Each structure stands twice: as structure tokens, then as C-alpha cells.
């Protein structure tokens, strides 16, 4: 079956998105990293936890492409499996914080009575530095990947809520919302079916940046040893484990650090590109 031709709006969006070569390059890099990590069981050369004492701290070479760590574990395999956790946490936080942030922001923007209390709550949540609040929450909830996702979503949801509230305040006053109200459409239906689709652009942009920030924050928590349980490899944990061998095996911290940096940089470039393409009015010369 032939696919329907792309609408002019879709074509214009893609043109705008890829008009910057850096966005295209970032998308290619991120896609390669995501596909490699997602296919880790098939791509990796071995079990990421398989120890081989004789291979400890082996430099990158023919047998171990990216070297072996202090327990003789294959760094390449660990990087791929760790990437699944690090990227998974970032994606999970972007999704969950968006859901929570949308709910809070829509309520604050739509119901005047809820606006002041919810906005002050958002202000108070944003007064806590992200890593500090995440540390406190994870210390209470425990260091599983799900708990880290929940903790970081609590940290970042207020950012989405602020964007959603600001956009909702504008959309709420437009004639089509008034028309829907006059036609007897219920308030929840107006919020979800009429307001939400019109404010998706800033949410998508913000969620992309949160994906990047969450990856950095997760790496920070794992590096500090207060994040995901150290038995689960993440890129942050790998840097933390490698720091003891900084003088003998630099690659142990170089490679996971590069993996984090490249992924986060790609996400930030894509976020910038999406912002310019989805809402050219917002496009700043940054």
C-alpha cells in the first residue's frame, strides 16, 4: 500500500529541523547509540558481568576492543548494557515528568483557584537544586532504576508544569476554547482534546532537554554512589569504578564519559533544532 504523501506542514517541519546540519548529525549519532544499546544482547561480544582476572585492566586491543576493567570484564559489553540503563532512565524521566508536569500545568493554567497554590508549590520544588533533591529522594526510596526515574521525575516535573501553565494561560483565552465551552464540551475534554494538542510543541522541546538533564543527573548520582545499585552498570557507575585506576587505565573513565557527553550533546542539539522547527517564534539566536 502506498503511503499518504507528507503534508506541507510535515515537510516544512522536517526542512526546518534538518536545516541545521548539526541537528542531523546529532540525530544520526543518537540513533546509532540507541540502536547499539537496544540491541546489546546481540551486538555485545559477551556477558557484561563475566570476569576474567587474567585480563584485568587490559588496554583496548584485538581481544577486548575497548579494553577490560579491574575485574577483567569486557568494557565494550558493559558500555552497551550500561547505555540501556542510562538512556532508559533519561527517557523514563522525560516521559514521567512530562505526564506529571502536564497534569499540574494544565490544572494551574485552567483553574484560576488552583493557579496560586500550584504555582507556589512549583516555585518551592524548583528552589531545590536538582542533584540535591534527587539524592534526598533516592536515599529514601532506595536505589533501583525505577526509583531513580521517579525521583528525577519529581525533580523535573515542575519545569514542564511551568511551561504548560504559561502556554495554557494563552490558549485558554482563545475563541475556539470559548466555542467548545459554549457547545457544552466538558472541562476535562477541553483540556485534553483542545488545549493540550495546541501546547505540545513547547512540551516536546522541554522534554528533550529534560531527557538530557536526567541523563547527566543519573550519571552524577551513580558516580556519587547514591543512585542506581552499583551492581547494575550505568555510564556513571563505570566512571566511578574507573576513577581508582585513573593513572593506569584512563580508558575506563574516558569511554563512559564520552558516551554520556555525546548522548547529552546530541539531545541538546536536537532540543534546539526541535524548538526552532516547532515554534519559529521561539527560535532564539542561540
Amino acid at each position, binding site marked *: 500500500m502506498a503511503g499518504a504523501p507528507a503534508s506541507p506542514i510535515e515537510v516544512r517541519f522536517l526542512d526546518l529541523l534538518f536545516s541545521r546540519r548539526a541537528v542531523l548529525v546529532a540525530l544520526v549519532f543518537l540513533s546509532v547509540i540507541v540502536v547499539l544499546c537496544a540491541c546489546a544482547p546481540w551486538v555485545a561480544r559477551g556477558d557484561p558481568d563475566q570476569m576474567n582476572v587474567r585480563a584485568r585492566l587490559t588496554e583496548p586491543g584485538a581481544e577486548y576492543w575497548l579494553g577490560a576493567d579491574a575485574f577483567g570484564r569486557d568494557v565494550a559489553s558493559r558500555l552497551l548494557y550500561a547505555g540501556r540503563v542510562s538512556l532508559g532512565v533519561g527517557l523514563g524521566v522525560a516521559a514521567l515528568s512530562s505526564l506529571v508536569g502536564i497534569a499540574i500545568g494544565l490544572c494551574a493554567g485552567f483553574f484560576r483557584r488552583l493557579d496560586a497554590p500550584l504555582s507556589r508549590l512549583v516555585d518551592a520544588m524548583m*528552589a531545590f537544586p*536538582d542533584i*540535591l533533591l534527587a539524592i534526598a529522594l533516592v536515599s*529514601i526510596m532506595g536505589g533501583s532504576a525505577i526509583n531513580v526515574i521517579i525521583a528525577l521525575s519529581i525533580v523535573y516535573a515542575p519545569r514542564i508544569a511551568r511551561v504548560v501553565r504559561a502556554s495554557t494561560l494563552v490558549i485558554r483565552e482563545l475563541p475556539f476554547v470559548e466555542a467548545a465551552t459554549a457547545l457544552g464540551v466538558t472541562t476535562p475534554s477541553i483540556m485534553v482534546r483542545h488545549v493540550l494538542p495546541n501546547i505540545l510543541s513547547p512540551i516536546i522541546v522541554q522534554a528533550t532537554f529534560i531527557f538530557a538533564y536526567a541523563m547527566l543527573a543519573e550519571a552524577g548520582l551513580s558516580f556519587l554512589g547514591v543512585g542506581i545499585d552499583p551492581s547494575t552498570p550505568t555510564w556513571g557507575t563505570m*566512571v566511578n569504578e574507573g576513577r581508582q585506576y*585513573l593513572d593506569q587505565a584512563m580508558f575506563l573513565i574516558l569511554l563512559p564519559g564520552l558516551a554520556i*557527553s555525546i548522548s547529552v550533546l546530541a539531545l*541538546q542539539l536536537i532540543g534546539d533544532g526541535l524548538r526552532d522547527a516547532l515554534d519559529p517564534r521561539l527560535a*532564539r*539566536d542561540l
Partner: protein
Amino acid sequence: MRGYLIRRLLGMAVVIFLVLTIAFIIVRLAPGDPAALMLGPEATAEDAAELRRQLGLDRPIIVQYLAFMGNAVRGDLGTSIFFRQPVTEVLLGRAEPTVFLSLFSLIIALIIAVPIGIYVAYRRGSFLDQAAISTAMLAASVPSFWTGLMLQRYLATDLGWFPASGYGGPDALFWERMRHLLLPSIVLGIVNSALILRFTRTSMLDILGEDFIRTARSKGMGEMRVLLRHALKNAAIPIITVIGLTFALLVSGAVVTERVFNIPGMGNLVVSAVLRRDYPVIQGTLIVVASLYVLINLLTDLAYLLVDKRVRY
């Protein structure tokens, strides 16, 4: 002006009230009995019950909440389980390195970011402009602990330009202590300069497009004077805003950087507190840092008055 100040102070009080409430809730959600934690594994159930009574943990939650709020307002943030000292004393004892680390890194970030931001805005679209934006984005993407470990390895261990870690020992003189903060401050400064550079550049671009700049140039004023006397003065407000915003980044960065360089500051304290399950210290740090953030944002708002005569509240 007075009305604005009262409104802002009231708003600040509400936010700090919510900050205290959130901090209270977070710690009350912690698993385990705080009294048993304080006494250690050797304690009997009777000892734990007695301590719970002394700490008021046997009272209804609402009474505990009111007592906590009352104490917090008076500056009493509870007692550390590990140190057996008031949390405020423990925090004050660790404040010096964190305060100076944040201050030095902010100064370094401003020294790097503001001149470059102004210059690349002036040379908009040039190769230098593109390079500065890309470098800023890269600096914001690299984890601060990784930058720290790399610079520690090359600049401290290999070249010996800086002390590799620590805070100079218990008897170190002030100058020696500050010397130990140099490299960590450079690391944090680089990380934070990214945001300030982008903000400075955007603010300058906005200002450089304004009519009064065109007028100044048409009067034959020198470019340097246009940039520094007219443009920078007017771009000061957004730059001050971003300095206020950087505070949260500085604290988050300090937590990680202190751990990398083994500096005995508040960041290191809070991570150790998590590992020791010393919840009052975690709670106290959250309250102090969040309250400072709220206060700094108020101060940046008031600073607008000083730098821009057009702002009237």
C-alpha cells in the same frame, strides 16, 4: 517600591514555608525508625522507645510537624544522627569550602563567559561566534565529575600545577585552603560558564539591535564605547538573572565536585549523610540551600533597581 518589597517578602515566606513542608514530608517518608538508627544495632526496644519519646516521635504527626516548623523558624534544624550535634552546627562547620568554591567558580565563570559572550554577539555569525556557541553547548553536556577527573589527572597529577585533592589538612592556613579550591573552582567555572555565555550573548544581541545603539553609532561614538557604555549596561539585567539562576547549578555542581576532589564541604557532607542514613543532615541541607536560593532570587530582583533606572517597582 515598599508595596513591591512587602509582596515579594510575603511570596518568599510562602515558598520557604512550602520548602520546609516538603523537607519534613521527605524525611518522614524515610524507611526505618530514626531512634533505632541513632542508637545503632546494639540498642534494645526499650531504649529506642525512650529516645522516640525524647525526640517527640511518639506524638501525632501534626504535632511533630508544628514543632518542626517552630524549631526551623528559630534556626533549629534538629540533631545529626551521626555527629550527635545540632544540624546547623554541622552545616556551619562545612560551609567554608562550599561557599568559597561556589564564589570562586562564579567569578571564573563570569570572567570566561561575559567578555566572550559580548564579543561573539558583536561578531554575530562569524566563525568565532559558532565556535563559542558549540563550545558552550559541549561544556554543558560533559558531566562535571568527568571534567574534574580529567583535569585532576592532567593538571594536578601530571603537571603538578594544583593540589590534586583535599583541603590542605586540619591545620592548613587560609591561603593554603584556598589554593586547594583553585582547580575545583576552574572545573565548576567551566561548567557554569556555558549558561552565562549563552545568556550574555542573547542579551547583547537583543540590545545591539535597539535604536539607541544605532543612534550612538550614528553620533560617531567609538565601537568600544558603544559596547561597554551602552550595550553592556543595558544587558546587565538578564546577566544578573542568570547569575541568580546559576546558584542552583553551582550547588549541584559543588556536591559532585567536592566528592571528586575530596573537599570536606556541604556537598560531601550530604553524600556521606545519605550513605550513613543521617536524615536530619539531608533535611537541613535541603532547607538551607533552598532558602538561600529563594533569597538570592529576591536579591537579584532588587539588584535590577541598582543597574537599571527604568525598573520601578
